[in-house]
C-alpha cells in the first residue's frame, strides 16, 4: 500500500486525489490523505464573489456531494496547517507537531493575495478576497459600510466591486494600469467592459495606486492615493493579483522561482515531491515564458496529471495557456486567450467590431497566438484550441473575425481531440 499525501484541498489537490484513485475508486487501496488549513470540504474559489454579494451560501460553492471523501476512502485533515517538509525522510510536519510519512507528496498549496504594501494595510476594514472566510468577513463588513474602494482592476478586483455594488455600496475602483483587465484585454475591449461596469454605478480612477489606508481610532476612514487625493471608504478590498504559496517548498530546499519549479511530470527538485496549481510556475504555451500558473483550468489539469504521475502512470504535461479567461460584467461577456496585443515584428493584429461586439485576433507567422472576444464570445473554445495547438490559420482570418469558423475548419488539429470519428477527405484537405 502506497502512501500519498496532498497538501491543499483546492482545484489541484482534489483533481490529484481523484486521479490517483482512478477508475479503481475506493478499491484502489492506496492510502490517500489530504491536508488543508481551510476547514471545509473543497469549494469553488471562483464563486466566492457570490458570497460577498450575499447571493451564494457555502452549499452552492461545494465542489463535490456530501460524503464524497469517505466514499473514495480519502483521509482528510481539514483545518490543519502543514508547517514543514522533511523531504530527506519523506515526512511532513503539522502545526501540532504530528509527523506524516509519505511515498509521494503533492504540493497544491495555491496562492495568496499580493499585499498592497502600503501603511495601514493591517487596518480593520482592509481585506483581500481569496477564501470563503475572506468573503464572509467582507460580507459582514459591508453591512456596516456605505462606501468601498477596490484596489486593482483585475478579474478578482472587478468581481469584488460588482459584488459590493450589488449590496448597495458606493464603489470606486483604483487602477494603476491605463485600463481595466490589462492582462486579459486590450484598450478597446476594456472600454466596452468599463462602460458596462460604469452603468452598474461603479466609479474608476486610473493611473493611481494607494499610498495609505487611513484609520482613526481603529476604524478605517479611507484611502489616500499616490497623488494625494483622498477617498472616503469604510471597506477596502485589495486585488493586486496573487503570489504562489511557496513557503513550505522554499524552506524544504526545493527549487523555487516565482513559483515552485516542476518538470514535465510535475516533479519538483525533491524526490517523491510533486507540485500542481497556483503554487507552481509554468511555461506558457504561446510565449514560452515562465509565469505563475494562477488559473482554475490549469490547476485542475496539472492536479490530474500530477496525480497520475504520482501513481506511476506516466503522464507528461504539455504546458498550458497562462492567459485563458472568461467573465461577464453587466451583460457583456468576455473571453480572452493567449496574447492580447502584438509583441513587435512578425505579429499581426486584426480586429472587427459590430453591434457592440468586439473581436480581435493576433497572429504570428500565420499561426493564431491570441484572441480577444468582447460582447459576443461564441466559438471562443475554437480559438483557444487553435492557439494551444499552434494551428496555422492563414487564409481563414475572415472566418475567425466573424466567428463563422468551427472545429471543422481544422479537422486534423481539432476534430480528433475527442477521439471522434474520422473527418472526410474534403475537410482534411482544407487544413494547411
Amino acid at each position, binding site marked *: 500500500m502506497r502512501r500519498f499525501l496532498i497538501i491543499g484541498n483546492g*482545484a489541484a489537490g482534489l483533481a490529484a486525489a481523484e486521479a490517483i484513485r482512478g477508475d479503481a475508486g475506493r478499491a484502489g487501496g492506496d492510502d490517500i490523505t489530504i491536508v488543508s488549513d481551510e476547514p471545509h470540504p473543497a469549494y*469553488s*474559489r*471562483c*464563486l466566492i464573489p*457570490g458570497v460577498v454579494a450575499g447571493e451564494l451560501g457555502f452549499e*452552492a460553492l*461545494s*465542489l*463535490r*456531494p456530501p460524503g464524497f471523501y469517505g466514499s473514495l476512502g480519502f483521509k482528510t485533515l481539514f483545518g490543519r496547517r502543514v508547517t514543514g517538509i522533511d523531504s530527506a525522510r519523506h515526512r511532513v510536519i503539522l502545526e501540532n507537531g504530528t509527523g506524516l510519512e509519505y511515498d509521494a507528496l503533492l504540493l497544491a498549496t495555491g496562492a495568496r493575495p499580493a499585499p498592497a504594501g502600503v501603511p495601514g494595510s493591517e487596518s480593520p476594514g482592509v481585506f483581500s478576497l481569496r477564501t470563503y472566510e475572506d468573503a464572509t468577513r467582507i460580507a459582514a463588513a459591508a453591512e456596516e459600510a456605505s462606501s468601498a474602494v477596490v484596489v486593482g482592476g483585475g478579474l478578482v478586483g472587478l468581481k469584488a466591486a460588482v459584488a459590493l455594488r450589488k449590496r448597495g455600496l458606493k464603489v470606486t475602483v483604483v487602477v494603476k494600469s491605463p485600463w481595466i483587465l490589462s492582462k486579459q484585454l486590450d484598450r478597446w475591449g476594456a472600454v466596452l467592459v468599463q462602460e458596462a461596469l460604469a452603468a452598474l454605478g461603479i466609479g474608476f480612477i486610473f493611473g493611481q495606486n494607494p499610498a495609505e489606508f487611513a484609520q482613526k481610532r481603529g476604524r478605517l476612514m479611507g484611502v489616500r492615493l499616490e497623488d494625494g487625493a483622498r477617498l472616503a471608504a469604510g471597506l477596502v478590498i485589495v486585488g493586486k493579483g496573487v503570489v504562489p504559496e511557496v513557503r513550505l517548498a522554499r524552506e524544504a530546499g526545493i527549487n523555487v522561482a516565482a513559483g515552485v519549479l516542476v518538470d514535465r511530470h510535475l516533479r519538483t527538485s525533491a524526490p517523491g515531491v510533486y507540485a500542481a496549481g497556483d503554487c507552481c510556475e509554468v511555461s506558457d504555451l504561446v510565449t514560452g515564458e515562465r509565469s505563475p500558473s494562477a488559473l*482554475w*483550468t490549469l490547476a*485542475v*489539469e496539472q492536479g*490530474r496529471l500530477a496525480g497520475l504521475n504520482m501513481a506511476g502512470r506516466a503522464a507528461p504535461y504539455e504546458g498550458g495557456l497562462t492567459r*485563458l*479567461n*472568461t*467573465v*461577464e460584467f453587466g451583460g457583456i*461577456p468576455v*473571453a480572452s*486567450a493567449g496574447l492580447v496585443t502584438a509583441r513587435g515584428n512578425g505579429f499581426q493584429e486584426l480586429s472587427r467590431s459590430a453591434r457592440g461586439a468586439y473581436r480581435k485576433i493576433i497572429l504570428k507567422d500565420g499561426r493564431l497566438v491570441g484572441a480577444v472576444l468582447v460582447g459576443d*464570445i*461564441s*466559438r*471562443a*473554445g*475554437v480559438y*483557444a*484550441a487553435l492557439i494551444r495547438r499552434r494551428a496555422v490559420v492563414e487564409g481563414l482570418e475572415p*472566418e475567425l473575425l466573424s466567428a*463563422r*469558423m*468551427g*472545429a*471543422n*475548419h481544422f479537422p486534423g488539429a*481539432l*476534430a480528433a*481531440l*475527442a*477521439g*471522434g*470519428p*474520422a*473527418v*472526410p477527405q*474534403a*475537410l482534411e*484537405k*482544407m487544413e494547411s
Partner: protein
Amino acid sequence: MHRGVFVRYERCLGCRSCQLACAVSHTRAGTLAEALLQGEAGGRRLFVDQVGAVKAPSVCRHCEEAYCVAACPAGAMWKRPDGVVTNAGSLHQCVGCWMCVMACPFGVISRGPGGQAVKCDQECLDGDGLPACVKACPTRALVFTTMEEFEAGRRRAALQGAAATASGGR
C-alpha cells in the same frame, strides 16, 4: 454504448433545418414562433459552417473526458450516467462564467439566455428516441448512432465504393 449525433458531411446541404429544429425543441412551448422570437439570443447548440466548398455541421461529441466538465468551476457541467454531457440536473446551478464555452475545442457550447450556458443535452429525443436535429435533416446527413456503428457504416460504404471501382464500376 451511448449514442451521439454523427455527421455525413458529403450529404449536408447547409439548409440549417437541424438548427431550427433544435431551437424549437428547446423552447418552452416547443413552437417555431418562440424559437424565432429568441433568435440568436436563444443560444445555439449546433452550428453549420462553410468550410471551403463543404457545409460542415458542428455538433457536441459528448466527449469521454469532456473538456467542459473539467473546466467548470461551479460543478454544474457533468457527464450523466447515460453518457450525455450537460449542465442541467447536476449538483449545482450553472453560474454563467463561460469557462465551458472557452474549454470546448469544437465551439459547440453557447452563452444562453438566463445567464446559463447551453449545449446539446439530448433533451429533444422523440418517441422513437431520435434527436430533433437528426429527425429534421432532409438529407440524413446527421445520424444518431454509436461511434462503432458509424465507423462500421463508413467502412462498408468505402468498401462498396472500392468494389464498384475494381469491377469496372458504372
